[in-house]
C-alpha cells in the first residue's frame, strides 16, 4: 500500500468516522480504523460492532493498492496536527506504516485486514428514499429525549415508523417524550418500524447535510444510510417500543401561551437556585401570569420570577425538572410556545405556536409531584 493524500482531505474523512471508534473497548482491534485502498479510492472504516461507518476519499496519487488497520487515536491526532501539506503513506511487508511529510517521518505498527470485523451484510433488504432535510430535522427534534438508562434498552434509541402516509419518529426516556411526523410522506409497501440506537442517530446527524435525498436500506436486524461518499450501518435496538400513544393526553384543555425566549431565560436563572439533585422548579400559573420559582433548602437559596403569559383557566401549581423544561424549549422554533395542561399530576403537552407545513410536532413532560407543604 503506497499513496499520497492532502492533509485536509484525509482529516475530513477521519473526522466523519472518528465518532464511531470506541474510546475503550474490550476488543482492542476496534480502537483501530481500517484503510482499504482499491481502484484508486481510499476507504476508511470504523466500527464498534453496533455501529459501523465507511467513508471514501480520493488520494492525490496511488502507487500500490492494499489494506491495513491502524490505531485510530494516534493517527487522527497526528494528521490533525499537521498543516495542509501532502502526506505520503508507505506500508512495508511487516505491516509497519511509514508516514512521510515535509516535516518528518513517522512510523506506526498496523494490524492486517483479516483481524478487522467486516461490515455486516443485509438480507431481505428494503429501500426507502427520504429527504435529507426531513430526516435531519426529525432526528434533531427527537434525540434529546432518548433514554441513556440500560434498564429499559428499548428506550435507548429513536423509534422510527415508516407508514403509508406518514414518516414518524418518537423518543422517550419515561419522563419526557417527543413525537414528530411528516404527513407529506408516501410509502406504498408494508409499514416498517424500528429502534435506531442514539449513537447511530448522532453520527447520521453529522452526515446529513446538503444532499436532497438519501437512501435508507433496512432489514430485520440492521439499517444502512447510504450517503454519497459514506455508508453508515447500525444494528437495531432489540425489544418492543412502549405504546406511547396511550400516554399522549387528549383532554389537556388548559392552555398556557408564553414567549419561548423569555421563559428559557427565566427557567435558566431560577434553576440555579434549585436542588442539584432534583433540579426542581415550580410553575405557579395564574390568569395571564406565570411565576417560576425554586428553592434549595440545603443551601438556603431561593428564586422567583414573574412572566406575562396568556392563560384563562383556574390557577395551578406544577413542578418540573428544570433541565427537562429547557431541553424541550430548545426544540421549539416559534416565538411562542404552548403548554397544554390538565392537572399537576398529569403529563403536560408542549407544542410550537404553529406547526410546520405537513408537520406535526409535540412533546410531553411529566411533572415532579410536589409535596403537601
Amino acid at each position, binding site marked *: 500500500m503506497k499513496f499520497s493524500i492532502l492533509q485536509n482531505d484525509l482529516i475530513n474523512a477521519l473526522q466523519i468516522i472518528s465518532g464511531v471508534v470506541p474510546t475503550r473497548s474490550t476488543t482492542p482491534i476496534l480502537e483501530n480504523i481500517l484503510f482499504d485502498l482499491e481502484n484508486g479510492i481510499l476507504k476508511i472504516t470504523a466500527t464498534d460492532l453496533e455501529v459501523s461507518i465507511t467513508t471514501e476519499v480520493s488520494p492525490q496519487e496511488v502507487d500500490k493498492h492494499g489494506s491495513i488497520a491502524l490505531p485510530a487515536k494516534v493517527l487522527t491526532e497526528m494528521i490533525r496536527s499537521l498543516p495542509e501539506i501532502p502526506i505520503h503513506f508507505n506500508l512495508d511487508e511487516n505491516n509497519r506504516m511509514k508516514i512521510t511529510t515535509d516535516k518528518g517521518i513517522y512510523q506506526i505498527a498496523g494490524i492486517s485486514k483479516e483481524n478487522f470485523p467486516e461490515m455486516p451484510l443485509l438480507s431481505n433488504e428494503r429501500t426507502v428514499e427520504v429527504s435529507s432535510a426531513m430526516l435531519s430535522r426529525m432526528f434533531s427534534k427527537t434525540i434529546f429525549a432518548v433514554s441513556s*438508562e440500560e*434498564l429499559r434498552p428499548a428506550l435507548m434509541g429513536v423509534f422510527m415508523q415508516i407508514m403509508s402516509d406518514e414518516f414518524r419518529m418518537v423518543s*422517550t426516556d*419515561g*419522563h*419526557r*417524550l417527543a413525537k414528530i411526523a411528516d404527513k407529506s410522506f408516501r410509502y406504498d409497501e408494508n409499514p416498517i418500524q424500528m429502534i435506531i440506537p442514539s449513537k447511530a442517530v448522532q453520527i447520521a446527524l453529522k452526515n446529513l447535510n446538503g444532499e436532497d435525498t438519501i437512501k435508507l436500506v433496512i432489514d430485520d436486524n440492521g439499517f444502512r444510510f447510504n450517503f454519497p461518499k459514506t455508508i453508515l450501518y447500525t444494528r437495531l435496538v432489540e425489544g418492543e417500543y*412502549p405504546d406511547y400513544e396511550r*400516554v399522549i393526553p387528549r383532554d389537556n384543555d388548559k392552555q398556557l401561551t408564553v414567549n419561548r425566549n423569555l421563559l428559557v431565560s427565566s427557567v435558566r436563572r431560577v434553576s440555579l437556585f434549585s436542588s442539584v*439533585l*432534583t433540579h*426542581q422548579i415550580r410553575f405557579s400559573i395564574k390568569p395571564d401570569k406565570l411565576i417560576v420559582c425554586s428553592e434549595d*433548602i*440545603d*443551601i*438556603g437559596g431561593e428564586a422567583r420570577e414573574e412572566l406575562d403569559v396568556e392563560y384563562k383557566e383556574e390557577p395551578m401549581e406544577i*413542578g418540573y*425538572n428544570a433541565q427537562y423544561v429547557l431541553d424541550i424549549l430548545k426544540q421549539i422554533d416559534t416565538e411562542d410556545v404552548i403548554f397544554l395542561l390538565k392537572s399537576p*399530576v398529569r*403529563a403536560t403537552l408542549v407544542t410550537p405556536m404553529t406547526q410546520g407545513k405537513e408537520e406535526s410536532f409535540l412533546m*410531553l413532560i*411529566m*411533572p*415532579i*409531584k*410536589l*409535596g*403537601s407543604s
Partner: protein
Amino acid sequence: MERTIIHVDMDAFYATVEQRDNPDFLGKPVIVGANPRHGRGRGVVSTASYEARKYGIHSAQPISQAYRLCPNGIFLPVRGKRYVHVSRAIMAILREYSPVVETVSLDEAFLDVTGTERLFGHAEEIGKQMKVRIKEQERLTASVGIGPNKLVAKIASDLKKPDGFVVVGREEVRQFLSPLPVSRLWGIGKKTEEKLANLGITTIGELALLSKKTSQDCFGKLGVVLWQYAQGIDDSPVISSREAKSISNELTFQKDVTDIQVLRETLLQLSEKVGYRLRSQNMVGRTVTLKIRWSDFSTYIRHKTYPKSIFMGDTIYAGIFALIENIDIHQPVRLLGVGVTQLSRADEHQMELFGIENGKSQIVDETMDRIKNKFGEKIIGRGLHQSGR
C-alpha cells in the same frame, strides 16, 4: 480562607438520654445496646454511661463482655426513635448559629462558623452559648471543640470529655497536637499505630517531624495524609446535611451463619423492614447497601445505585440479592445489614409517563403496611422461594 470550625459531641448520648428520661438511672451504670441475655447475648454495646465506663465498658464492646464486667448494670435496648427525636432538637439549636451544619451522627456535628462572628460574637462565645442552650433546653451535656479545621476541632472536643470545652487557636495547633498519641488522628488504626511504634513514633509531634517523603515511602498515599494531619492540616469542608442520610437495619445472629438460604431470608426481612421504614417516613432512596460482618469481625460493604427512586421491600431485596450473589461466603457471617441512602422526600418525585411503578408489588407492600401499622411490624412479611429470588 482561614476557617473556624466547631465540633459538638454529645456525652454518652444514648445513655444520658435514658438517664434523663428516667431519673432512677441517674448516677448508675447504664448500658444501651443488645440484650445481654445473662452473658450469653450477642451484639454489642452502643453507648455506656460514664458510670458504666468505670467498669471498663465501652461502645462496640461485645455485650456479653459488658455483662461480665458489670452484671448489675442497667442494660437497656436502643430506642432509636427517641434518640432521633432528641437529636433533632439539638441540631435545631446548632443551626441557629450557622447555616453550615454537618450532622455526622445523631450525637455529633460540625459547624462552620467562619464569618458569623459579627452575628454571634467570637467562635468561643458561640461554643459556650450552644453548650448552655443544650443544657437548659435538653438537660444534656455536650463537649465542644473549636479549631481551624475539622480534624483539630474533633480532637479538641474529645480531649476533656464529658462536658468539655477546648479551643485551639490557629497558632497553637502544632503545640496542641504534639503531645497527643498518634491514635488520635483520623486514619490511624491498630496496624498503622504498630508500624509507627516500630519506627519509634508514638506521638503526633514525633510523626510531624518525619519528612513528607519518608511518610509517603512508609505508608503510601495514606502517608501523605497522615503527614498533613500531623502538621494540623485538614482542608475537608463542612458539608451541611438537613435530612437523614440513610435508613438501615442490621441483625447480629445468635450464632454465626453459613447457610445461604438463612442469609437470604434474613436479607429479605431486613429489606422489608427498611422499605417499611422508608415508606413510613415518607422517603424514597436511590442506593442500596449490603453490609456483612464475618466471624473474624472484618466487615464487607457493597453498594448498588438505581437510576430511579426505590421504596419497596422487594426492589431493595432485588438489589441486595444481586450483590450477595457475587460474594463468596468464605466464612461464617456474624452480622447482616441492609441500608438505603441518597434519600429524598417521597411526596416530591419525578413522575413516570408509563407508570411502571404501580405494579402488583406495590399493592402487596401497601397492604402489608396497613396491617403492620395496625398490628405491629412483626406480624407479616414476604416469603422466599428456594432459589432466593
